[in-house]
């Protein structure tokens, strides 16, 4: 009751004295500051001059925001930031399209067809989720090495076109199981083929699940580090994640200080996922509800 009256009051914030609530607000605000501060500091640092980065004690805010840092960032010799961004974009787009198409195909097979070995196949699909990446990545390296794919983007997105992985299949299958079968059975009686049913009836109904899976895939693919670290070895092939680490650790990039530009690179590498988050916020919670596993 007290909660409701509090939230209905336009100026309820602290005016209606209720010590527990006030403490709760203080607590959550302190937490929010703790969580937000690292990102605030990074953004501010990316707008500082090199001198301000070296000043002791460090200033909280840049005297004048140096937006030019972001323009400088794309011109540093041997740090091809735009190429990294492009490489990451290729990987993210091809991975996401591959996962969405093939995971929903496989999910359709699990959800709507009956054939020998289906349940065993589904069990194996779930068990892949428990196997750590470290086990399969060494033979995958050998495989891609023999294909001549090392130091290309292929190892990063081609596997996504082969079912998209256990989690993607599981999420899509769980969603398809909730769709009434009457629709596809009616279409079948009307003479539609299985592919038509999949493409024109089920997939449009799966839009919420596809959106959730798409967002999760984009964020995972954009942030992936271990696989590009292993499969790429020259800077002009790097994705944003490995590139950022290269930039941060390369000792001889330039004689001039780079800290403010590294911060700018950090901000740029985070920007796409933050934008995606704000565009598709509601799908994260939905992903949790749908899979019961992760979002």
């Amino acid at each position, binding site marked *: 009751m007290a*909660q409701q009256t509090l*939230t209905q009051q336009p100026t*309820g*914030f602290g005016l209606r004295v209720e010590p527990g609530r006030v403490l*709760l*607000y203080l607590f*959550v605000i302190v*937490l*929010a500051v703790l*969580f937000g501060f*690292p*990102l605030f*500091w990074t953004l501010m640092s990316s707008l500082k001059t090199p001198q301000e*980065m070296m*000043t002791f*004690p*460090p200033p*909280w805010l840049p005297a004048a925001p140096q937006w030019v840092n972001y323009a400088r960032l794309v011109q540093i010799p041997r740090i091809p930031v735009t190429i990294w961004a492009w490489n990451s974009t290729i990987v993210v787009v091809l991975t996401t399209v591959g996962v969405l198409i093939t995971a929903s*195909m496989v999910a359709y*097979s699990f959800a709507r067809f*009956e*054939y*020998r070995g*289906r*349940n065993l*196949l589904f069990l*194996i699909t779930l068990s892949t989720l*428990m*196997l*750590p990446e*470290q*086990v*399969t*990545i*060494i*033979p995958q*390296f*050998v495989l891609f090495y023999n294909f001549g794919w090392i130091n290309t983007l292929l190892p990063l997105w081609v*596997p996504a076109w*082969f*079912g998209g992985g256990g989690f993607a*299949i599981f999420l899509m299958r769980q969603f398809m199981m909730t769709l009434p079968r009457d629709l596809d059975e009616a279409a079948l009686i009307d003479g539609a083929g*299985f*592919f038509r049913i999949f493409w024109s009836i089920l997939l449009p109904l799966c839009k919420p699940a596809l959106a959730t899976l798409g967002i999760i895939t984009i964020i995972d693919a954009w*942030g992936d*580090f271990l696989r590009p*670290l292993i499969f790429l070895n020259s800077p002009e092939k790097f994705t944003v*994640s*490995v590139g*950022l*680490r290269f930039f941060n650790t390369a000792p001889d990039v330039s004689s001039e200080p780079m800290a403010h530009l590294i911060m700018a690179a*950090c901000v740029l*590498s*985070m920007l796409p996922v*933050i934008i*995606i*988050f704000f565009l598709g916020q509601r799908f*994260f919670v939905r992903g949790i509800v749908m899979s*019961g596993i*992760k979002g």
Partner: protein
Amino acid sequence: MAIAQNQIKARPPTTNAGWLGRLVGAKTKFQIRRALWGYLFALPWILGLIVFWAGPTLASLYFSFTNFEVIGTARWIGLENYVRAFSGDDLFWSSLGRTFTFSIINVPAVVGGALMLAMVLNQKLKGTNIFRTIFFVPHLLPAVAIAVLWTYLMQPRLGPINMMLRDVGVSSPPNWLASASSALYAVTLITIWAGMGGNTMLIFLAGLQGVPQELYEAADMDGASALSKFWNVTIPLLTPTIFLVLVLAIIAALKVFTTAWVATQGGPSYATWFFALHIYTQAFQYFRLGYGSALAWVLAVIILFFTYIQVSSARRWVHYEGG
């Protein structure tokens, strides 16, 4: 499946089923057609499983018994890699121990912290959406960016954390990532910041919203304190969620890699040399693929062991509603 097979046995196959029908587990012409389409739709994943999962899993098991090193052929050396790991590798036990230390701090902090955040967000405060966003976003950010920006935050002299510590009177604040005595805890702190408000929090929030309000109202009528409501209503009803989240958190913690590799490269003087770093350097810096595979299997067995322990002990302490 089992039922379908029994039916096939019970009745003689119709003429149009034939060997193909028995092969795919179908009776009528339509069922055969449907089964074949089923395989067709599953085909990408069947191939993917073979090429990217089953094949590599078996290959890696085989490599772990060889001295494979990319160039040249693999020679079978039996258990030598495992013997070397357990008794002849200075970094094996220490990196394993460090990974456990990390997990013992990280898992309770992430899971407990996520529960705390979820409970705060469930209080219907004003601006809950903004708070939820602030807590959740770190989890989405690329792990490399997180590690890089925290190395600047934790920079001993010019970093803002030590600046603030000095401002409040700490004369010699810790060197964080730069000193062997604190680096492990500094890395742990970064992963807690990145993990606490993530999916774990959202899963708890969904769980909390599923707790029936009548239970709290009944507890209120009995005059239960907030703490008692937490222990006797919230926690029992959340145990399935806590269980799920714990399994995921432990698996994630045991695989810790990116934060440490980017922030400290495992240093200083191996202070953050976790097990996954050991696998990575052995396999991909020294290209000891055989030995690296053996190490990867040790990690896999540990992870499977913890998953098994949790799943099998769950029955004793997990409360499923209505069950």
